């Protein structure tokens, strides 16, 4: 009996969490699952179990679906590997190496996040389309006989990798900042070369972050629609996201089949998560122990400048060129450019439109909405992620494994499908949030829970438990101990997570589509509408301003403290 009481008492926190996650994540997913097994879309008012069937899954067997899946897996795998290489490399340089301009490299690492993948893809289509891409015009201009064709499989992979590398960067940067050099030095002394030390100690210790961001990137590139549409589609590269998009956009809509695809993806992703969980739970990755952390920079010797150069190349490809392209396209008075010379003609470029845009109530309102929603969602999302991660990795409560799966589940569902589930959920739940910004905040928290969770987990695993336990023994309540010891030690990781969520929320479109109202339009919707109108110039202008808004917010967030952890100074 008492044992039962204790069980219940111990279970209460997890129970509360499960309820929160249940509403946030499970309910929308259940709706989607129901849709996947129903003949008709189970909207509020017509939810029922009477039309259950497995017919929707037939679509998975179609050669189209299989082909798209194969393509997507291939593309996502290559893009993830590339993105991971870029992200981890940059993270290492910015966190641990004695490269020139480390702070700048941090900026390089996160800057591509300012460009939503839709904008990045558009920019690259401006740059690299075979007929009129700016780069091709430049090549022509200087008499080079090469034609860059971004509309191809390699192009698609490159653009995806460019814009997903920051995920790896942020998570891995957090992890590497928490490294204890003693562990590396031990390898160095025992005969390990620098490279060997990195590959034997440093990166494996960041494994939770690396694996975590790997899973994230893989899943996200697999379902990224904008790049697939803008880059893949013209190149006739068929992918799963286009496939889902078509299902959703077909007339009549084939939402139930889209849900079936989503459910299948979820299953696959859960398996991947389980594998990753096994790898992470089996070992320990504590790098911050009670015997001190003395962050030390790794000396790169003569590789300093070449590596810095590589980072610059990435910056050029991911940020400078695309922003340049966007700028030209936002300023130019005609979307058609046949040679670069045309741009120098009088009247070819004008700031008028951008000026108009900044002052337009539309822009101001959506910028405000975006900022508020993103900041709230990022902070709350990080908080929830922390609580979940803490419960999973620092307590013995029953059901903590389940929590992890729940937290990771939204990753598998394409945002557009999840958006539907969220719509149904928040229409059904009798809380007065539907139609307000709060419903957007909640939706973003749900959609980005996996990202937040992964971000927090990787750093929580690095902090030795003894540090927190000692605070408890010295008389602090658990919460005090967490806020005095654990959180500050994880600061870099937490700030990274907030930043990550912030930027993701700023640019998220699909999940918001079903939930916004005329008062709660977001910048991302403005961009998409502009693009959908064929108003590339508008889209480019909003994108530019939007980059500025994100930049400002990100700099503010960063100045709240992504310092490294090495003793109070």
């Amino acid at each position: 009996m008492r044992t039962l009481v204790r069980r219940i008492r111990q279970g209460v926190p997890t129970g509360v969490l499960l309820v929160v996650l249940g509403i946030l994540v499970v309910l929308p997913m259940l709706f989607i699952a129901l849709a996947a097994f129903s003949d008709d879309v189970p909207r509020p008012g017509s939810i029922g179990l009477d039309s259950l069937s497995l017919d929707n899954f037939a679509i998975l067997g179609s050669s189209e679906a299989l082909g798209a899946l194969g393509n997507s897996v291939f593309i996502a795998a290559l893009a993830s590997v590339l993105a991971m290489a870029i992200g981890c490399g940059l993270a290492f340089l910015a966190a641990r190496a004695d490269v020139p301009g480390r702070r700048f490299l941090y900026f390089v690492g996160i800057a591509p996040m300012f460009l939503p993948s839709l904008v990045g893809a558009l920019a690259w289509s401006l740059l690299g389309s075979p007929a009129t891409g700016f780069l091709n015009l430049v090549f022509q201009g200087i008499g080079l006989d090469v034609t860059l064709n971004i509309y191809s499989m390699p192009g698609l992979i490159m653009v995806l990798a460019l814009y997903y590398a920051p995920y790896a960067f942020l998570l891995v940067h957090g992890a590497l900042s928490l490294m204890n050099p003693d562990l590396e030095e031990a390898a160095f002394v025992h005969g390990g070369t620098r490279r060997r030390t990195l590959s034997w100690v440093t990166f494996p210790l960041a494994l939770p972050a690396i694996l975590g961001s790997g899973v994230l990137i893989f899943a996200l590139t697999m379902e990224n629609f904008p790049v697939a549409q803008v880059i893949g589609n013209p190149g006739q590269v068929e992918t799963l996201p286009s496939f889902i998009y078509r299902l959703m956009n077909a007339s009549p809509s084939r939402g139930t089949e889209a849900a079936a695809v989503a459910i299948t993806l979820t299953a696959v992703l859960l398996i991947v998560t389980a594998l990753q969980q096994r790898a992470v739970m089996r070992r320990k990755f504590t790098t911050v122990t009670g015997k001190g952390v003395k962050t030390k920079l790794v000396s790169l010797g003569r590789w300093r400048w070449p590596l810095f150069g590589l980072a610059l190349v990435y910056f050029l490809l991911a940020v400078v060129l695309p922003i340049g392209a966007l700028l030209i396209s936002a300023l130019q008075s005609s979307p058609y450019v046949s040679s670069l010379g045309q741009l120098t003609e009088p009247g070819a470029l004008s700031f008028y439109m951008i000026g108009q845009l900044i002052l337009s109530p539309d822009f101001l309102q959506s910028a405000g909405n975006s900022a508020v929603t993103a900041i709230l969602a990022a902070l709350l999302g990080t908080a929830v992620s922390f609580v979940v991660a803490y419960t999973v990795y620092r307590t013995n409560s029953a059901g903590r494994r389940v929590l992890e799966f729940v937290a990771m589940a939204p990753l598998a569902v394409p945002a557009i499908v999840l958006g539907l589930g969220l719509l149904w959920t928040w229409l059904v739940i009798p809380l007065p949030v539907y139609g307000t910004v709060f419903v957007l905040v909640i939706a973003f928290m749900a959609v980005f829970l996996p990202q937040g969770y992964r971000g927090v987990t990787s750093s929580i695993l690095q902090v030795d438990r003894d540090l927190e336990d000692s605070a408890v023994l010295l008389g602090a309540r658990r919460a005090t101990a967490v806020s005095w010891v654990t959180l500050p030690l994880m600061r870099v990781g937490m700030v990274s997570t907030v930043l990550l969520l912030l930027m993701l929320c700023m640019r998220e479109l699909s999940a918001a589509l079903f939930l916004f109202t005329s008062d709660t339009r977001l910048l991302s919707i403005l961009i998409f509408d502009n693009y959908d109108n064929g108003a590339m110039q508008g889209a480019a202008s909003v994108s530019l301003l939007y980059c500025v808004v994100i930049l400002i917010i990100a700099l503010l967030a960063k100045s709240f403290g992504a310092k490294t952890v090495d003793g109070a100074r």
Partner: protein
Amino acid sequence: MKVQLENITLAYGGAVAIDDLDITVEDGESLVLLGKSGCGKTSTMRCVAGLETPTRGRITIGDTVVFDAERGVAVPPNRRNVGMVFQSYAVWPHRTIFQNVAFPLRQQKLPKDEIRQRVAETLEIVGLAEFADRGASLLSGGQMQRVALARSLVMRPSVLLLDEPLSNLDARLRDRLRLELREIQQRLNLTCVYVTHDQSEALALADRIALMQGGRIVQIDRPERIYENPCSASVADFLGVSNVFSCVPRGTAEGGSLFGLTGHDVEVLAQDVPGDLDAPKACIRPEDIRLSGDPLRDGNDWLGRVEVVAYQGASVRYRVALKGGPELDAVVGKGTAPLLEVGAQVWASAAPSAVQVLPSEVRT
């Protein structure tokens, strides 16, 4: 406060670290836990502190049951008023030394002035007064260890657990801190559990010593007593009796019982041997062996040859190969006898009262 552990069992994953352990530490008592590396000392402390959840058993501190597996009681660590110096220090690397040490006082919501003063005092004791504002990870190993110690001392808990708190300090400092610790413990009537591998530390600090083996207590007693009367050969071995030999009874002789060392040609005379022992072993402390040019003829005398001479400061340690017998360790006070050379022929002698014949292990 009295600390009582009853039937405590703890397993990490599958591996049992503590196995049905019972100990009582009396109010104000200082108990030293001794035992081989990996025998479960730290685990025991963590159970008392509430950092591990045993699978079975009950823990009482004072009059409160803080843990009871059956009744589902588990008081959280911060409400047990137990201080602990971690073997891994657990110094917070992102805080200054002052902040580290002031933390427990902050938790007790003491006024700022008092905090400052008590922290300063404690830092003075551990010799870190001048480092107060240094980041805690910018210290040497021994300095960090002292921060960990100071942090627990300043708290004045009712039970203090110290897990090798002085292992990285030099002998002088260790001596001094050991005295300070003992003084504080007695003044505040603290109940202490102390893990140390330093024999003299154990003896200096302990009211009682508990000997652990494989997750259990095999002997618990006052220091002199445990030292004089180890309950088994393996305890004796652990307490520094380096001459331990298997033997078989050869009946009684004048002045005691006679034993033959297994595998050797040598016999030993021992006094006060209890009856039928399981796998008996003869144990002789190296300090009780006398080396000289002539046999003493009042007990055991063996002829041997000096194999190793090791200088030990205040004493000299010899290893002597007995003729037809095993090697014997002998420690001789520096002033008491002339130095012997390697290769010298000597008589090694031991009084029958100095020979203990003990069971190899005790079953608990």
